[in-house]
């Protein structure tokens, strides 16, 4: 019998959005309660998945667990199916998504005053879209979620954003669409290639896993680039990151949390789920790999250096994301199990700590309506609890031992070191710079006397705000002190992935001349 838990998790937020449609827009309290109940419900419903998944974490007999649906039960004519399934990698990201979705919605309680109903409706739709991306085992379904998710995010930035919201929203939408339409062509190529090899038209990802590595290198490299562009824009890797600061700065706080916490992970998830297993010969190619590692390292250092120079707190956090995600891609392209599992764990860590950082900035912004660092100083005197939590999250973000960031970054660096010690050496300054820009920010905002009289009467955290931080702080300590369960969850999928990459790269027709469907010429 098929278990339907994934579908239930997937559609709970959408159900919430549907219910909200029938609540009159003037009744703001009811709307907030309903949205929060569904967001919390979405998180609670995903909790039973934890013991269920834990029980079969080492099960190597099937790559994807909790599979439901079939390969072509949705649109048989084109071979698209409603097929969901997860492995350890997507399991962690799904749990992160449900948690951050609830926290973001809770944090919007007081921040959103206008067009409240719409806001929660779009947010809940966004939540379903994100979950769908991590669950889909069918490329058509995946693409539908991947694109459909852009619309609510665009509206969240565009309607509830800051002064340059229009620019930021359009830039976000166009930039991400540019990558994804090229990916669509890549998907269609894989789909057609599968048909040429097997005679079957299907979008099923497990089926495509079997045929895609056989694509000759000359075509595969172009396909890899098409997918790379989609994911690199989403991550964002240097030099495709320019949409990120705009989108982050203009988005409302909860939008930033989701953007940093979950949306960016779709790029790294895409690399792990698609680029690596589909094009093993390409990612193992030293030139391609060199470029990927190079861009990651440039991203780490560049993001950190730019963060140092920011006057706006939110922009600082945004650029720090570029740096942190550079670590994640570095771990991925180290192409060994240490680097990969570190990378996935670091993705979760980044969601926790950067999500918290955006909440922290949002709390000050709600009280003072400015994010200029120069406006603040001595905040720890007026908001002691807030200052403590900020300290914990800053330390977690910069990678202090006993907190989550350390575990992730250390594992990634260990993986990179195993592959090539120079890579690790180049990336390490990023850790130091992270400490520099975060501690310097902390010093300027929190330490010293209260210089600005407007800051004297700031209210400390309310219980609701404290509640938004509680799970994040607990998780930061948990992963920092006892990360073993997380690595156990990742062990099986990561090992299998590394194994298949190396096997396929050996067997694939490297540099084969005759492309069965490539190279037929462009226009004629």
């Amino acid at each position, binding site marked *: 019998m098929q278990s339907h838990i994934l579908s239930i998790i997937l559609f709970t937020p959408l159900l919430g959005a549907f219910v909200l449609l029938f609540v009159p827009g003037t009744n703001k309290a009811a709307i907030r309660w309903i949205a929060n109940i569904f967001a919390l419900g979405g998180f609670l419903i995903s909790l039973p998945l934890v013991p269920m998944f834990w029980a079969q974490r080492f099960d190597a007999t099937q790559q994807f667990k909790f599979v439901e649906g079939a390969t072509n039960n*949705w*649109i*048989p*004519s*084109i071979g698209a199916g409603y097929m969901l399934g997860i492995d350890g990698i997507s399991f962690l990201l799904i749990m992160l998504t449900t948690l951050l979705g609830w926290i973001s919605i809770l944090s919007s309680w007081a921040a959103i005053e206008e067009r409240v109903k719409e806001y929660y409706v779009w947010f809940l739709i966004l939540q379903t879209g994100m979950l769908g991306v991590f669950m889909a085992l069918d490329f058509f379904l995946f*693409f*539908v979620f991947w*694109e*459909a998710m*852009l*619309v609510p995010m*665009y*509206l969240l930035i*565009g*309607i509830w954003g800051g002064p340059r*919201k*229009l620019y930021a*929203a*359009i830039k976000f*939408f*166009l930039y991400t*669409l*540019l990558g994804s*339409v*090229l990916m*669509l*062509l890549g998907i*269609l*190529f894989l*789909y*057609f290639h599968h*048909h040429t090899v097997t005679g079957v038209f299907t979008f099923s990802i497990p089926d495509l896993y079997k045929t895609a590595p056989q694509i000759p290198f000359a075509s595969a490299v*172009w396909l890899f680039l098409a997918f790379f562009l989609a994911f690199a824009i989403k991550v964002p890797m240097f030099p495709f990151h320019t949409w990120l600061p705009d989108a982050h700065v203009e988005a409302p706080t909860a939008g930033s949390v989701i953007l940093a916490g979950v949306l960016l992970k779709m790029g790294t998830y895409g690399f792990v789920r698609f680029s690596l297993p589909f094009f093993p010969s390409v990612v193992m190619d030293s030139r391609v790999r060199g470029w990927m590692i190079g861009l990651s390292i440039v991203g780490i250092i560049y993001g950190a250096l730019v963060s140092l120079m920011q006057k706006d707190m939110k922009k600082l956090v945004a650029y720090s994301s570029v740096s942190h995600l550079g670590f994640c891609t570095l771990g991925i392209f180290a192409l060994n199990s240490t680097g990969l599992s570190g990378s996935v764990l670091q993705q979760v860590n980044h969601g926790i700590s950067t999500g918290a950082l955006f909440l922290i900035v949002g709390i000050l912004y709600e009280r003072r309506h400015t994010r200029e660092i120069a406006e603040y100083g001595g905040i720890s005197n007026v908001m002691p609890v807030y200052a403590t939590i900020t300290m914990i999250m800053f330390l977690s973000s910069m990678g202090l031992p006993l907190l989550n960031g350390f575990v992730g970054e250390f594992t990634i660096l260990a993986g990179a070191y195993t592959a090539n010690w120079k890579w690790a050496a180049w990336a390490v300054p990023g850790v130091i710079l992270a400490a520099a820009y975060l501690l310097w920010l902390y010093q300027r905002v929190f330490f010293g006397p209260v210089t600005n009289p407007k800051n004297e009467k700031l209210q400390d955290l309310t219980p609701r705000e404290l509640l938004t931080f509680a799970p994040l702080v607990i998780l930061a300590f948990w992963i920092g002190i006892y990360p073993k369960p997380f690595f156990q969850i990742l062990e099986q999928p990561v090992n299998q992935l590394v194994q298949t990459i190396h096997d396929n790269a050996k067997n694939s027709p490297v540099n084969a001349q005759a492309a069965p*469907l490539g190279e*037929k*010429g*462009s*226009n*004629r």
Partner: protein
Amino acid sequence: MGLSPTEYRLMLPMVELTIFALGILLIDLIVPREWKWINATGAFMGVLFAGVCVAQIQWALPRGGIGFLNSLLVDRFAIYFWYLFLAGAAIAILMSVRYLDIENEHHGEYYALMLLSVVGMMCMAAGIDIVLIFIGLELMAISTYVLVGFLRRDRRSNEAALKYLLLGAFSSGIFAYGLSLLYGLTGTTNLLLIQRAVSRMDPHNPVLIIALLTTMVGLLFKIAAIPFHQWAPDAYEGAPTSITGFMSVAVKAAAWAMLLRILLFGLFPLRTVYTPMIVFVAIATMTGANLAALTQNNTKRLLAYSSIAHVGYMLLAFVAMGTSQPGTPGFLDGLKGILIYLMVYTFMNLGAFAVITSLRQRDVIGDELDDLAGLYSRAPAEAVLMLLFLLSLAGIPPAAGFLGKYYIFLSLIESGHYVLASLAVFYVLFGLYYYLKIANAMFICQPLVSERLPISLGMRAALGITALATIVIGVYPEPFIRSVNWSLGIAQASHVAAVMK
């Protein structure tokens, strides 16, 4: 010569529509002004009955039928298009009732001409004889010339009608010239016989090339492909908004049906000659239309350019088809792509025009981008539906427009046109940008006027049908893909399949 019962049956929908058109003209004389909605009801009933007649043909003659000295071929391909025309006409009629009332031009001729133009379209889609196709084309074209200029007190409408008439008549002349050359070369007016004759001729025969070129000019003019598009923005902007919607879907679908009939039936042996030209036209159409649309501030004009851009995408599918061997996936998916695109486009584009039509108030023309400002606070349901139509036009899943784009990109990949495919997806970005301009105005800008927008019952129905179709085709496309497969005889053999072999 007597008519066989089959022939009666085949022409029944057209006869029935003509009777309703003439009946509306007569009834219009006697009904008082406040009862003019009877005309609209009559026209709607006419379309419904025609739909029933088509369904009867579909049931009674599952393999289609041919009649009138082999000039009228009602195969599944024709039936598919007939349904599209009728759907487009029905929705346009629903949109028109209140609009004409506001424009104070509530005349029966409007609906009569609309029905007559549908008769013309039916002849174009089902014609297998160039004389019948040409007659159908002229019947449709002349009806639409009048409809474009229907707002006789509006100078823009008059200007549009005159431009459309002059350019249209000119292109029809060139088209007729091409057809007459074809007749001279082959000695027949039947497309299947023309195909047989042409396949025996040297494809580089200069007279044949001239015949092909002139015929193609006529066809490309009717689908408004660049460089034969100049009439479209003016005609679309000046025409009554409901007619703009009707023209952009039904008239365009008819032109495509004619193009496919002539190029895929009659001139199929020449496809190595005309496909390179279509490549050029397709690239020019996408580039020109997308660039021009970026700077438009009039929504009708913007959507006119966007509809030209959509023609560019469909032409790409035609390229994929023209360069693949018949029966290969590239060929089939290209052809399916065009048909699916036309179906999806019928609903999403009519929906968008329905929203713009509803903006027309007593004192507001409602076709500037500013008139859409803050639409969300004035009419939330309409704004959300408009967003749906725009996203669908841009090709964002799960709206229906994605399905059309999917097939076109797929056919390009399958026929190996990677550069063209990349170019096409690049222009999707342009498209998204100008559609978002409208969305921004609706959702993000502040409204200039605050009162809520009244929406008539007919308009509600039109919006409901188009929105439902856009969502359902997008989320569960299986039955619609099957219907296209059916119309192309992919499931079973039919005349089209015979040609494709």
